[in-house]
């Protein structure tokens, strides 16, 4: 395994993109992201194609079904299979949503956790258990929400900070989710950003969203990234102060690879502008006590 600088831009790996990627992976795309729930145990042609990419490129594992804040038992079978999947494909970073998606049954949707002290303790314990099983620190992602569960005892950034500090885990920052929530709940996204535990950021998401007729924003990952979200990403890079890998998420209305690549290249430009002064030499684990050094299976820079 080789390690590379953390200031890299990547793309969500999707089956629809495989034919285009087989013709050549654009230089701007330095890593891919996959959901274990989609790709673990995949055989046949898709499984073979997937392996051909994991052998050549770094992949980040981004979970969807773990239900970190959910009332159902923590799915340790899912965690162990995810661990095996990551080992099989040389992945060293796992992130999940700070949300829930199941009680005793799955709903396959990311739902908001009530912002209470009790929920902080409960969720942090489950994250700590997940980290024990995976044998690594994980990143938890600030989620997009459409409702504010009643009975909140703190603000959302306070909740995020309390959870990651109690669990001693990392932050997976999603700037589009901040923007979507800021519009739907009427707050300043930059002020919100400033309150997050950004010193623990290990990974960043950027994506587009959909605007409904009445102005409500829906986090669809189905359109291009808008300027206010790019500006939020730029602000986040300045505040984070250390280089982090950043992934463009696109799950619907997927355009052709050159169009997607333009957005990935834009991430890379923002990274370079933010960190060209601080990123030499590449961040080493010793230089930063909190962050893991994301090891990638092969030097691709």
């Amino acid at each position: 395994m080789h390690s590379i600088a953390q200031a890299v831009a990547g793309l969500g790996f999707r089956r629809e993109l495989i034919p285009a990627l087989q013709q050549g992976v654009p230089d701007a795309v330095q890593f891919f992201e996959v959901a274990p729930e989609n790709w673990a145990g995949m055989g046949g042609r898709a499984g073979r194609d997937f392996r051909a990419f994991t052998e050549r490129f770094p992949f980040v594992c981004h979970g969807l079904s773990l239900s970190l804040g959910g009332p159902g038992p923590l799915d340790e079978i899912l965690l162990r299979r995810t661990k095996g999947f990551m080992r099989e494909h040389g992945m060293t970073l796992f992130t999940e949503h700070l949300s829930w998606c199941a009680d005793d049954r799955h709903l396959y949707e990311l739902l908001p956790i009530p912002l209470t002290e009790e929920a902080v303790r409960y969720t942090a314990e489950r994250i700590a258990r997940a980290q024990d099983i995976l044998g690594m620190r994980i990143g938890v992602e600030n989620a997009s929400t459409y409702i504010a569960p009643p009975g909140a005892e703190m603000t959302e950034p306070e909740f995020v900070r309390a959870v990651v500090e109690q669990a001693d885990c990392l932050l997976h920052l999603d700037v589009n989710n901040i923007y979507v929530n800021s519009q739907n709940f009427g707050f300043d996204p930059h002020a919100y950003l400033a309150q997050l535990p950004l010193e623990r950021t290990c990974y960043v998401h950027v994506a587009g969203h959909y605007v409904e007729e009445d102005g409500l924003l829906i986090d669809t990952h189905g359109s291009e990234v808008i300027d206010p979200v790019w500006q939020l990403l730029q602000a986040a890079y300045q505040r984070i102060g250390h280089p982090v890998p950043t992934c463009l998420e696109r799950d619907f209305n997927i355009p052709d690879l050159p169009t997607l690549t333009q957005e990935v290249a834009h991430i890379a430009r923002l990274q370079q502008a933010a960190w060209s002064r601080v990123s030499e030499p590449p961040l080493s684990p010793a230089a930063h006590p909190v962050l893991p050094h994301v090891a990638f299976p092969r030097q691709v820079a």
Partner: protein
Amino acid sequence: MLAFQQFQHALAQHLRDPHHTRRPPGVPQRRMAVYNELVFTNLCGFVDICFPVSRQLLGEARWRRLCRTFVRDWPLHTPWFREIPREFVRYLSEHTIAQALPRWLAELAHYEWAELAVDVIDVTPPAHDCQGDMMQARVLLNPARVDVASLWPVHRIGPTWQPRKTEPTFLVVFRDAQQEVQFTEINAVTAHVLALLDSGLTGQQVFAQLAQEMAHPDPEALQGFGQQLLNSLREQGVLLGTLT
């Protein structure tokens, strides 16, 4: 139950059955509608893609009603998205569904699921000799395979034809050497042969047993027929050869 989990249970219950339950207190209708739509649309997406024929034949309104009761009534425990269609097949075949449905629907859905499942089954065939003598040695069946035994001729069901009478049907859905999904219709005897081969008998043993079961007047001739049958199944890709 922890205090904050009461809200979660109320929300989950409403998401599964928005038409018959109240939304949790403090949740605005407009925002609840977003989640109701997201949850249902997402689940329909997983199901729709696997069952295009079933969906078309049922028609959109009846299909959506069926999806609705699936979300409401079936315990979806799997975290793996690929397993949601399999759960839908189980719902159709195991659950008592109030909605009036064609009698062949559960079997048709199983057949549609088999095509998708075979495409992505994660199996590596064990060591084998693809030229081996299948009459003398243990035979390797293609492990990327689902056997479909149904009362209805599910592979012929489509917009222009639906069966009115049962017609026992045996299909083998499998992935060929080019990783393409194929299916072949077999008869009851061949299905029995495959089951016996799968249990570890050699071709010769299988057809000797068959001769006995059928009280066949010419067991030797049956062996000759058997050899041809196995070769043909190997050419198609249902059998891969002999285990080494």
